[in-house]
Every structure is written in C-alpha cells, then in structure tokens.
C-alpha cells in the first residue's frame, strides 16, 4: 500500500463522497415526500389516485435502480426529455425510494388498530385530533425500523450512479484502477469513504429505533 498515492488522491475521493452525500440526501428527502403522499393516498383510499399509486409502487419495487436510471438517462432524451446526470440520479433515487417509503409509512398506519380510532372518537376528539394525537404517533414509531432500513438501502443504492457518468465514489475508484492499476489503495479508500458515510447513519438509525420503541399500545 502506498501512502503517497493515498494522500495524493484523497481530495478526489472527498469530492466524490460529497457528491454521493448530496444526491443521496436529496433523493432520500424526495423519497420521504413521495412516500408520505402515496401512503396518505392509499390510507384514505382516494379513488383513481390510489390505483395509480399502486401501479407506481409495483413498477418501482420490482425493477432495479440501474435499469430505471438507464431509462431516465439514456431513454428519455430520445423523446425530448433532457436532464443532466445529477438531476437524473436524484429523480431515479426518488422514484425507487418513494415506493419503499410509502410501504413503510402505510404499514405503520395500518398497524394502528381500529379500536384506537374508535376510542379517540368516543372521547370526543375530532378527525384532526385523532390523527394528530392518537394515530400518527403510534404509526410513526411502528414505521421507524423500516424507515431507517430504507434510508441505508437508498444511500447504498447510490453506488450505481457511476453508470450514468456521475463522478461518485465508485466512478473514482474504477477510474484510478484503470489509470494506475493501484488496486489495493483505490479499493481501500473506496471502503473507507463508504464507511464514513454509512456507519454514522446506521448508528443514528439504531439510536432512533431505541428511542421510539416506547409505543406499543393495543398491540
């Protein structure tokens, strides 16, 4: 292992890591928004929309991100929808993550038993209060483990971005391997940087899971 090589190319990896973090974060935030919307649509069984949401969820969950990205990045421009690689990466991650988040939130909402809503109503709470003080807090704590798993899953999925020529960590590693044949150093840096990104998220996620485990009413 050559320390010189590592220090020389460290800034390159740092730049790539920031790209991964930036697109990953934006993708996760968008996924949460889409997930909340879809979960609400399905929970309230809004006609037409809930059918469309179901189709979207099936399409998104049963296809790989890499194939989705290829279609978005290489396919769509052919019918005039041109996007740059970063937007494409975010859109792809949001398309994939939205359905995973929707499933996490929806199963949380559905896991809250009906008796909870009935009891709240018999106490004289209106629909908003029932949602705000009874249903959502319980649904939230039930969805947290799936939510945390999804965030980590989505951050890991960003590793395919190099396929649409985004200069992320994988791209950098592959590039250096191709250019200098410095396998050990390139791969070592790759692993270290992914650990720097993913370990804190994983530890925070585990802490969050412990923190919200209090709610177990009606179970």
């Amino acid at each position, binding site marked *: 292992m050559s320390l010189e090589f590592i220090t020389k190319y460290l800034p390159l990896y740092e730049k790539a890591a920031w790209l991964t973090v930036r697109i990953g974060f934006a993708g996760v935030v968008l996924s949460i928004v889409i997930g909340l919307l879809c979960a609400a649509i399905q929970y309230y069984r809004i006609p037409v929309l809930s059918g469309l949401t179901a189709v979207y969820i*099936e*399409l998104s*969950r*049963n*296809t*790989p991100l*890499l*194939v*989705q990205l*290829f*279609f978005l990045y*290489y*396919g*769509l*421009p*052919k*019918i005039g929808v041109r996007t740059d690689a970063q937007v494409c990466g975010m859109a792809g991650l949001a398309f994939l993550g939205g359905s995973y988040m929707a499933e996490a939130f929806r199963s949380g909402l559905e896991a809250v038993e009906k008796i909870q809503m009935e009891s709240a109503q018999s106490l004289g709470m209106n629909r908003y209060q029932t949602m705000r003080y009874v249903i959502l807090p319980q649904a939230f704590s039930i969805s947290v483990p799936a939510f945390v798993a999804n965030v980590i899953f989505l951050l*890991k*999925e*960003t*590793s*395919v971005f*190099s*396929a649409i020529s985004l200069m992320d960590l*994988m791209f950098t*590693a*592959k590039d250096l*391997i191709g250019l200098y044949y410095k*396998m*050990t150093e390139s*791969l070592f840096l*790759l*692993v270290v940087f*992914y*650990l720097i990104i*993913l*370990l804190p998220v*994983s530890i925070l996620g585990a802490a969050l899971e412990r923190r919200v485990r209090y709610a177990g009413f009606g179970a």
Partner: protein
Amino acid sequence: MPDLGLEVLLKGQNMERLLIGLLAALKISLVSVAVSLPLGILLGTLMTWKNPFIKAVLRVYLEIIRIMPQMVLLFLVFFGTTRAFGWDLSGESASVIVFSLWGTAEMSDLVRGALISIPLHQYESGEALGLSKVQIYRYIVVPQTLRRLIPLSINLITRMIKTTSLVLMIGVVEILKVAQQIIEANRTASPNAAFGIYLVVFLLYFFACWPISVAARYLEKRWR
C-alpha cells in the same frame, strides 16, 4: 414518426438476444439463491445458539456484508481478490461469490428473526406434553418458523434478481449490456432506439420480479 426502438427489437434476433441476456442475469441470481438459502438457514440457526464466540463471528460477518453497497463488494472480489491472491476470476464467478455471500447474510438474519419470534412458551408447552427435543422442533418450531420465513425469503429472491443488474459494471454480458450493443449497432438507422429498448428492459425485469412479489404477498396474507 421516428422509430423509438420497436422496429429495432423486431429486426433479426434482437428480441431473442435481449431475452438471452435476461436469462444470463437470472442464472447468476438463481445460482446465488441456491447457495444462499441452505447456508443462510444453517448460519441463522447457529446465530440463535448461546455460544458467544459463534454469535460474535456471525454478527461481524453480517454487519460487514450489510453496511457495504453490493457494488463495492463486487469490486472488492472482482478486482481486489484477483490481485491479492493472483487467481483468475471471471465476472460471472465473482458475481456468484458476492451475491452468495450477501444472500447468505440476509437469509441468516431472516432465519434468526423467524426463530426468535417463536415465544418460549411454545417450547415449554411442548416439553410439558412430554415431546422430545426432536419432536418439539419437528412439530412445533419448524412449521411456525417456515410460515414466517417463506414469504420473507421469496422477497429476498426478488431483491437478489434486481441486484444482479449490477454485474454489468464488472463486464458481465447480461441484458443491459445486450441492450447497449443493440442500440449501438443500430445507431445510424434508428438513433432513438434507446427509449424503446430500455423501456423493454425495464418491463422485462418487472415481469421477472412481479409474479414472485405477488406470490410472497399472497403467502404472507394467507399464513398470518
């Protein structure tokens, strides 16, 4: 109306080549599934044992595999081990190794989860009825574990099929690679073919995974 890829697909054996590409990807995932399921069951059962050493070793294995993106694992095995051990590894073998390691880790966690979800009183009631240890497992624990496990492992299979698309990145010729070749070969005649062809690839993956997901959901509901 310019050709968006449909004509190209119907030309020659292009559609057939695409399907063969899909089969190449499916083959890698199915071989890995065949390795992962039994190994995962074995390791998952070991994880519920009380031996702290075995527990620690398996835990470390699981966490290392889980925290790394599968792409990184592919690179480590395909580029890293070939350099470190000097062996010659094809892209296909590297993929099977990686997906088996990963699948085994995921499967073992599912097995462990299913096993520890069986409440202690199930074992105790079995003992109180005078059943032997083998009988308790055969008639009480295993059937209940399987009901929880089978839908989850079917889901794991679809995840493994989807993850196989990554092998493109280490030079394995599979469906996406074939799609690229077809688009490249017809660049002048149908410059817009990428749209239709990648859409078809997308749909092919969907129809490979969707029935499996539906089966998993059906079993989950039925066996609840």
